[in-house]
């Protein structure tokens, strides 16, 4: 077993990326993710990698586009306002079917918003923040250790399906320290990047990285082929954690750091004899809809808790499909729900007040 080290979430994500073979980082400063570029600027030169601070997030994501198209393991990181700027590039990356990692350490919004933790970028991440028909795989770690594991896996998922992957954290996860263990990276068997622009080197015909299909029929064909790929991802890559749901009257649904707080509330509820369980989506897309759909048969109600005004709750409602009531409790703007407040909500549902 390798040694446990105490690390900040942001730094752990950066180290995990390097250990997964990422050698190119293009970024731009924004709080609360600044430890990621800082760490990269220190480490990349020591592993013959490239750290480049671009003139804007727009430029940074297009450097990612170029490097990904050239066949590299590459990433960028930012927070809400910067991720908004990257959406143009993300859409091109999705359209050109390039793999890369985008880390969003979410802060309160909209606009300049604040710098405290939030989950208000769920829609943007999961429903397509840029233009056009596309998806990102969105991974939502709950602990620093999970941030490490998912960051490593993100590159493999990206390469396997030629799809951009987002790790969606928040300011709390980015700033907090927890013990982490860097297990030797066991990658998946991956297809060769024979589509990349590396220079033909006299060995093959030219490769073209492109998202332009001026004929609508050709574009539709391209999009439908990608849809097929999305269906495969939905079948193979769904991840979630489930606890105490077998006898649960109320199933709590929460992701990321909020799920930790919800678990504290769940323990308190169980101590008071309230039958409460939790489903924690780890992949936000593909969303673990089937497990929630099945739980609608046994549970009496669902309570979604988020650091937002209510975003993931829409996907929970789609999954539950009206079979049982789906309630919502959220804090926003950088405020974090307290376990006691969640317990209160649980009691309200039990008491029929909601």
């Amino acid at each position, binding site marked *: 077993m390798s040694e446990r080290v105490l690390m900040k979430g942001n730094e752990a994500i950066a180290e995990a990326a390097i250990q997964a073979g990422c050698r*190119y980082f*293009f970024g731009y400063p924004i709080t609360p993710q600044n430890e990621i570029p800082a760490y990269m600027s220190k480490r990349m030169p020591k592993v013959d990698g*490239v750290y*480049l601070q*671009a*003139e*804007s997030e*727009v*430029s*940074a994501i*297009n*450097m*990612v*586009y*170029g*490097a*990904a*198209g*050239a*066949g*590299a393991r*590459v990433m960028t990181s930012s927070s809400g306002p910067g991720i908004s700027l990257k959406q*143009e*590039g993300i859409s*091109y990356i999705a359209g*050109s079917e390039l793999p890369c990692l985008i880390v969003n350490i979410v802060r309160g919004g909209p606009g300049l918003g604040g710098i405290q933790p939030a989950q208000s970028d769920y829609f943007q991440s999961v429903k397509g923040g840029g233009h056009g028909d596309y998806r990102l795989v969105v991974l939502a770690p709950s602990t620093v250790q999970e941030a490490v594991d998912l960051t490593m896996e993100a590159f493999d998922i990206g390469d396997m399906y030629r799809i951009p992957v987002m790790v969606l954290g928040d300011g709390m996860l980015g700033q907090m320290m927890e013990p982490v263990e860097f297990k030797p990276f066991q990658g998946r068997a991956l297809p060769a990047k024979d589509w990349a*622009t*590396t*220079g*033909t*080197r*006299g060995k093959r015909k*030219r*490769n*073209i*990285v*492109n*998202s*332009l299909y001026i004929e609508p029929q050709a574009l539709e064909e391209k999009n439908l082929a990608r849809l097929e790929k999305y269906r495969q991802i939905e079948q193979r890559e769904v991840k979630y954690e489930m606890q105490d749901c077998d006898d649960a009257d109320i199933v709590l649904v929460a992701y990321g750091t909020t799920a930790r707080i919800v678990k504290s509330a769940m323990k308190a509820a169980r101590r008071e004899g309230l039958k409460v369980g939790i489903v924690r989506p780890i992949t936000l897309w593909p969303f673990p809809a089937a497990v929630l759909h099945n739980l609608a048969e046994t549970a009496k109600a669902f309570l979604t808790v988020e650091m937002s005004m209510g975003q993931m709750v829409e996907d929970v409602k789609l999954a539950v499909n009206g079979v049982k009531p789906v309630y919502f409790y959220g804090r926003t703007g950088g405020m974090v729900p307290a376990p006691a407040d969640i317990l209160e909500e649980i009691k309200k549902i039990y008491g029929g007040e909601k």
Partner: protein
Amino acid sequence: MARPKALVDMSQHYCPGCTHGIIHRLIAEAIDTLDIQDRTIGVASVGCSVFTYKYFDCDMQQAAHGRAPSAATGIKRVHPDTLVFTYQGDGDLAAIGTAEMLHAAIRGENITIIFVNNAIYGMTGGQMAPTTLVGQVTQTSPYGRQIETQGYPMKVSETLATIEGAAYIERVSVDSVKHIKAAKKAVEKAFRYQMEGKGFSLVELLSTCPTNWGLSPIEATDWLRENMLPHYPLGVYKDKGGEQA
């Protein structure tokens, strides 16, 4: 005149009399001369140049509007031994892509920008560009470009010459055989500099747009000479290589 190896054997989408075809040929000839076709990666931009990824017989990427220098940066950092060039028009480079162009130069990024300046947006139907001349009539400057409300035409080569990171900046024109010969040398020199690791290079090519200027091809070259050359003087604006063009 045989087709250069680095050009794909296909008809191009450009309008009759457009000078993009000449510029494509100059680039392909330079690639052939330097014998680097298998180590060249081009980046197409948005505008009339959007389809250039089809025309060059080398690896190509198509970049978002204005972002070609950033995409080229990503490529070059991954494959430093390749020739990486972008092909951009005046709207793409000098308006929406100003920051990307400028900062690629500031970093001394070892890439080459082929900048086609025809003083108008072509693909979208002839709107005013940053390089549109004062008084020039376009779809969106129907009374002629007014300094009071629309400002001055941007001089890209002069601006970039002030940037320390830029190794080689030259403005050429494709309005005459003599100028085309000089343009050929400039493109080749920019590519050679890049292969020698000298840093950022940009060749600005004054070009015509008969369709959107509303002129015949011959009238268009005359218009270029009479109107663009006085405002955009030809010449080497920066040369860190220590040799003459």
